[in-house]
């Protein structure tokens, strides 16, 4: 029995001293392997008498089990230590910078275009489109601009050179030509599927798009964005126009206490015509909406001129309605505080990053417009 005690003491000591998995395995083989010391002892049990076996059996089996347990325990400990050591070696400095990612952004004008579209969509307006290169008919004549009238000159129109047929195309000076495209009775389908074709009243559309005038300063650029609105139905009057625009302005600016007023004005294609002002404060050098005693003009509007309706084949004694034109860039500047219109088109990444919007700022009734 002394032998077993000694053997166990020796084995425990060497297991405890085993420095790594390989050393431990060698000890296991030497003890429990085919020709290991404990295996050898177990083999002797077969040649023993039943009495001897009754005594030695449990002792040797007990020794085997205890050594096996020690081996497992030590193996687990060694593995844990090894993992710790490996993890220690694998340390990285997380204060190092992550690879840079560019911050994308949505342009404020286009953000505002989506905001406006969302508000008008709620009021039942559909989006319609038309071409940027227009003809004189759609941009002027059909909109009741008299030939050679000063009102035409006031538009600072960009013209192209006359074509072989003598026709002089132009860049649309407003989104209003799409009114004509949406109303005019014609036998021909639109030249392309995206271009508005004649609709039957009731018509309720908005037309966001690029417009062009030959002008440049802090509040004018040769290209800018406009949104036209057009409502044609039976019995639509100026009160509906007023409600529509007042409702729009209140929702768009997302501040309390926006006040507005309508002033008579003149546009060839509306009669009566009006401009809308909103109350603001200019005392601090910048324009603040929803406060102050100053007025700021923000849009032109009016009842569609009977001549325009007639020109499009709509009987003004049956159907009537209103139209308005909003400057998208200008509304963006007012709402979000950009000082110079020209910056909108400069593509300075610093400006885009500062005034741009997150991809996730899409207008949403649950979160607001931006």
């Amino acid at each position, binding site marked *: 029995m002394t032998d077993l005690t000694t053997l166990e003491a020796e084995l425990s000591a060497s297991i405890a001293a085993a420095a790594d998995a390989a050393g431990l395995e060698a000890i296991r083989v030497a003890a429990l392997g085919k020709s290991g010391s404990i295996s050898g002892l177990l083999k002797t049990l077969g040649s023993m008498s039943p009495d001897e076996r009754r005594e030695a059996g449990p002792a040797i089996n007990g020794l085997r089990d205890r050594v096996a347990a020690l081996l497992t325990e030590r193996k687990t400990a060694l593995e844990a230590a090894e993992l710790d050591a490996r993890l220690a070696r694998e340390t990285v400095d997380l204060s190092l910078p992550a*690879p840079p990612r560019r911050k994308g952004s949505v342009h404020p004008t*286009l953000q505002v275009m989506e905001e406006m579209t969302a508000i008008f*969509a709620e009021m039942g307006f559909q989006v319609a489109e038309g071409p*940027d290169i227009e003809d004189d008919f759609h941009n002027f004549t059909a909109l009741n601009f008299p030939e050679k009238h000063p009102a035409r000159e006031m538009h600072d129109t960009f013209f192209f050179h006359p074509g072989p047929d003598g026709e*002089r195309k132009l860049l649309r000076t407003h989104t209003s030509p799409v009114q004509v495209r949406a109303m005019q009775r014609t036998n021909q389908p639109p030249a392309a599927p995206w271009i508005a074709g004649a609709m039957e009243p009731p018509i309720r559309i908005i037309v966001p798009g690029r417009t062009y005038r030959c002008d440049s300063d802090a509040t004018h650029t040769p290209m800018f964005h406009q949104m036209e609105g057009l409502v044609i139905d039976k019995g*639509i*009057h100026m009160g509906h126009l*007023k409600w529509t625009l007042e409702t729009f302005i209140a929702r768009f600016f997302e501040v309390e206490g926006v006040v507005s007023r309508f002033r008579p004005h003149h546009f060839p294609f509306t009669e009566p015509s009006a401009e809308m002002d909103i109350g603001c404060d200019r005392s601090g050098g910048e324009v603040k909406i929803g406060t102050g005693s100053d007025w700021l003009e923000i849009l032109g509007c009016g009842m569609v*001129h009977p001549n325009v309706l007639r020109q499009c084949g709509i009987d003004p004694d049956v159907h009537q309605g209103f139209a308005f034109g909003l400057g998208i860039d200008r509304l963006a500047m007012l709402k979000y505080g950009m000082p110079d219109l020209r910056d909108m088109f400069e593509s300075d990444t610093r400006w885009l990053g500062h005034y741009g919007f997150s*991809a996730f700022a899409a207008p949403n009734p649950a979160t607001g417009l931006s």
Partner: protein
Amino acid sequence: MKFTLSWLKDHLETDATAAQVVEAMTMAGLEVEHVSDPAEKLAAFTVAKIVEAVQHPNADRLRVCQVDTVDGRLEIVCGAPNARAGLTTVFAPIGTFIPGSGITLEPRPVRGVVSHGMLCSAAELETAEESDGIIELPDSFPVGASAAEALGLEAVIDFEVTPNRPDWLGVAGIARDLSAAGLGKLRDLTVTPVPGRFPSPIAIKVDGEACRVFSGRLIRGVKNGPSPAWLQARLKAIGLRPINTLVDITNLVTYDRARPLHVYDAAKLVGTTIEARLGRHGVNGDEHLIALDGKTYELTPEMSVISDAAGERPVGIGGVMGGESTGCSDETTEVFLESAWFDPIRTAQTGRTAGITSDAQYRFARGADTGFVVDGLELATRLILELCGGEPSQVVVAGQTPPPPPAVAFDPAYVQQLSGLEIPPEKSGEILEKLGFGIEKSGKSWAVTPPTWRRDVEGKADLVEEVARIAGYDALPATPLPQTARPAGGVLTVRQNRARIARRALAAAGYAETATWSFTHRATARMFGGGADALVLANPMSADIDTMRPSGLPNLIEAAGRNARRGFPDVALFEVGPVFAGDRPQDQRMVIAAIVAPHAPRGWDKRPRDDLFTVKADLLALLEELGAPVASLQTAQGSASSWWHPGRSARLQLGPKAVLAEVGELHPAVLKALDVDGPVYGFEIWVEAIPEPKKKGKTRPAADLPTLMPLSRDFAFLVDAAKPAGDLVKAVAGADKALIASARVFDVYQGAGVLEGHKSIAVEVMVQPREKTLTDAEIEGLSARIIAAAEKAGGRLRT
């Protein structure tokens, strides 16, 4: 245009302040630009009387005055040499801001004597450039009266007139509208004719083209010279320069009645006839005229020319400007006065051609009152007789006054129908009559005749505007739009919706959205396949933006260059906008263009951030979002446009005629021409080329989620080095469409161990068993089919 309050009050009986006038003008449709109101600026300054003035005990040049002021008798220290007892002058109390010196008065002792205010000079009130003493006022002004009033200063209102209202280019016209709007009573505007004493020795001839109607008369024995102070003051207040009485009278009538006139020095006229005719082509080119502004103008056959010497000598451009040779001077004793009516379009064109905008040209171009031609002449005659004396001839008139505007049939109920305003018919009638309209009522139907100065009124909607704007737009009843059925699929067009998706997707992927001009430089347009004559602007803003852009890329590349020159070269930009292949509507297409100019800061981990393939990944992800059939897209390597790197670009297409996008690295020569350092990667998507999905309702087909594990098999094929890997992959994936879920390249190798001129492409094929696990034999069979398919595509299994 400008006018003063007192001028307005010549025509309008009213107690309204400048602010009330401005408000009423604004709400009647006149856009007020600016108001300078001295009464407001100088509100604190009042009339005061010096009772006593004694020498200051401690200063030679100062006087200590006892002054009767609005605040009682005060002791005030004054340095002015004219500060003396009995003087009526202007007082500013403590706390007043003095505009001329820019200081605010404080109660500070002046050399030991406290001054309780200040006596002011004209310079301190900014009513004169300089002054050598305090203001001296007539004794008649009572203490405490407004200094601005005592000094005769008044508000000047500067406003804009819309082109439909030439009658507003005269103060009387504004008074008429303000009176209708309830601001006061319009004084009588009628002009009583002045009988002529002798037949006009000068005759008039018009041809109807150049001038519709021309009236005139001679006034002899006039005494010209500087006009009286009131007239000079009136003109100066609105920014006009007084010249001499005769000319000042024409300017007065121009601004008072929107009725331009002209005065000729009759002694300088040649012959006895003034003729209005069109300009003439001579043998030596067109006629010329040295006008009153001293400049020489070429007279074209489109212009109206006023001539004398039997039509031979031009003496004026009709309705625009007179000639220098017959202008009136201080020495003029015989004046021929002209009041004519020139055609608006011809006058507008003449102004444009000659580059002249005069007060007369501006008014005739917008349409002068056809009913006030002779009246204007009579009004001016009166003023000339009054201010210059003289004896008038009888009036001579040539030509025909254009007919008055026709009557408009009008049912007053239409006011409410169009405007929503509930206005009783009597009220509508009253407004129209106050504005000068004639009404003939027969029951519900009225015949409304616009006045001769309102040629803009042509129909019943115009009449509604008249009634509504005078009644006030404030009263418009805000009325909700009728409810309509909302379109089920949203309100955007397919294009607009794609633009929206692209915007959000690319912004999320790190690209900054830009909005750039729709135009570019013609040379740049040519480089990108455009620049056709039809797309070049005749009047560009500047030469570098003179042509409609054929592609969305060049403006983005140039933007990258500008950012680089500011020190920020690392950019990823995109734009959704139009490009133009021609000038017809269908030639306009919408593109989504994006570029990456990779200049990322150095990273400690040395990982490259961008390359062509990250841009390709962004493009494919976006196409997927836009609903493009990405799996069916062909990558046509090397067939992209000339502005791409020929070896590093491709077209993504559904067929040769259905090109959805191009992607690649920009051609170095293009970048060099646009002055941008490469490389620049990018893509351009033609939005309309993406087929519209054939959607049938919102429900989706059942999901395909096999229960069996997929397995993967690797193959390596040798292919010709020039052959696109995409072809091989497509062939492999198509070997068994039922079983093969995907095939992707995981290694491309060229070099040792691979046949010269070839490359090895390693493909991992994912196999998705459907009904049952595959047996070894089935897998072998599938492998054989894959290898066979690869062979057909030119790939040989590498062994």
